[in-house]
């Protein structure tokens, strides 16, 4: 599902952020592909508010539509803060390979 479809106040794991610029900016904010964020909520008639620890970011709806997420089966319990990033690193390696193959 997309970030826009995420249920209110439930943790979700970010799977893919296709925009290059948005992906880099999100990683700077602390949210990468693979990160389990505390909650995502679509504000009434507005953008999506994502909370991750003490960090809050707002993403426009069109951008949120392109971001893929999944509900975390374990809920918010027992998560390892490093683990999410490790998943992300695997993804990045995959992406890095793709980038190199395109000859960028």
């Amino acid at each position, binding site marked *: 599902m997309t970030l826009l479809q995420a249920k209110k106040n439930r943790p979700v794991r970010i799977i893919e952020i296709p*925009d*290059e*610029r*948005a*992906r*880099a*900016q*999100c*990683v*700077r*904010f*602390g949210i*990468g*592909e693979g990160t389990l964020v*505390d909650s995502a909520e679509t*504000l*009434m*008639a*507005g*953008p999506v*508010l994502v909370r*991750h*620890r*003490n*960090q*809050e*970011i*707002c*993403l*426009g*709806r*069109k*951008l949120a539509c392109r971001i893929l997420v999944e509900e975390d089966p374990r809920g918010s319990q027992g998560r390892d*803060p*490093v683990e*999410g*990033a*490790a998943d*992300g*690193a695997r*993804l*990045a*390696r995959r*992406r*890095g390979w793709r*980038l*190199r193959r395109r000859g*960028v």
Partner: protein
Amino acid sequence: MNEAHGSHHSCHGGPAVQAPPGARKIVLVGNPNVGKSLFFNAFTGLYVDVSNFPGTTVSISSGVMGDDVVLDTPGIYGVSSFNDEETVARDIITEADVVLNVVDAVHLERDLFLTQQLLDMGLPTVVALNMVDEAESRGVSVDVAGLSAQLGVPVVPTVAVSREGFDRVREALDSARVGVSDPVLQDRLLSLLDRVGTKAEALLVLEGDPFIAERHGVEPQGLRDEIYMDRRRRVNDMVAKVVSQRDRSLDLRTRLGHALMRPLTGLPALALVLWVMYEIIGVLVAQTIVGFTEGTIMQGYVEPAIRSVVGSVAGGGVAYELLAGEFGVVTLTITYVLGLLLPLVIGFYLLLSLLEDSGYLPRIAALTDRLMTAIGLNGRAIIPIILGFGCITMATITTRILGNERERRIATALMAFAIPCSAQLGVIVALLAAAGGLGITVAYGGIMFVVFGLIGVGLARYLPGASTDLLIDLPPLRLPRPINVATKTYHKTVMFLREVTVYFAAGALILGVLQVTGLLVAAQDALAPLTESWLHLPREAATAFIMGFVRRDFGAAGLYDLGLSGGGILVALVTITLFVPCIASVLVIMKERGRAFMLFTWVGSVVLAFAVGGILANAISWLSAA
């Protein structure tokens, strides 16, 4: 993807600020809203130089501390070329001798990303761990020694608002060190070093910065994703080791922040804030204070004094007219800049700094984002548009915060066409009140809203390119510090006046020449038939439009004495609101968006004003006949 223009130096190495030989360049770096400017003000004292970075509209401050030069950089989340702020920060950072990185103890996960990037660049760094008091009150505790060991650089806990820890930061600058980085990454940097020169720039090349790569004649490497994710992992790892948080529940401030973004609570709050702003800028400053500074002081004392001096030196005739006549270069410039603009600009920047420092602006952006996307903008654009109701000239400058040139153009055009500034709004409100009432006020507001929407939708459709999406970090709500607000207001005001004065003098000269040559009266006569037959207004209304070229409120004020009916007032007000922006904003539009775009808004607003006004006038007479 289009990066912001990145190369400010035609050749490599032209530094932004020259440091005397032997002086260290200490560069302050940090995320937005972490209190960097408090460090800068405390370290450099009163004698601070604020200037535009060459080739950009981003201002940088520099000052002196002992033998060293201190440079402040715009708040950034990472070093690259995503926007003007980053480009400027990047070019200053890569030339730093010592980096003082200010981080927010509450948001270490975010802030340490930039820190780690600075360490990866191989820059000697000291970290100021700021807002430790706030962190404590939110249940966040940081192991300072542990963090210092992890980063490999000195870390000093501080509370910038009360200058706690500043002495220790100053001492620590002497022991700034190149911190811990990733060995694999460092190997990669070394292999680039012979071609690029510095590690800092080598890293940017690896991360795919096209401008730094071009500067050194090498290919940018597309490794940003990989390096970023790896850095993020290292930072998360570090945070997990040194930060512990007792309580994750939402505190009152966070809840208040949410309420400001939800329409049911956020819209009334916004309406209240706008009303207070209008009372301050539109009523107190634009009418009462400007009435005194422009009317009493300038026109009452200063202008007559200048006229008598110029008269005794230059005699009468053309020279007198050009220097001290109705549009005299000396009189008009002094009256407008000091009598009219100075109070408006101070009031304007004071409110803007308060809003900025409180953390409210990003929440307004979130609240209005969806509405703004309909006109090709995102929520951030609400900021210049709200400010436009204060002063279009100033608001045009704040379009710099928007994501790309397409958005800046849409916002600039919308303001130039359809937003009345506070000076004009004052006259409009008075006229609407005189015309007797709610009905006509609602009609005026409705027509302007529809025209605003149509222009926005039209521009969004026909301007090439795509607009950016909202992606912002929401800083915590804070009570602004008066001293910080005052310093910001002072520097911005001085810089604004320094920039616009020459444009005003030029504008006055052009008008003066038009008047002396008789072209102004000729234009007045030429306009008259259009006014009468198309707009169904009395012939004299043409004068209002001619005056409108100079200042919007002059134009509106010219309608006072015409004794118009309700329908006539509606037509006249709609036309004069859509009519050209004042000379000051035209000049700023030219400076910010270029001459072609200035002509587009200027000619476009004349056409639009008469088209909409005429259609309205004919619709009204058709309706009353039927």
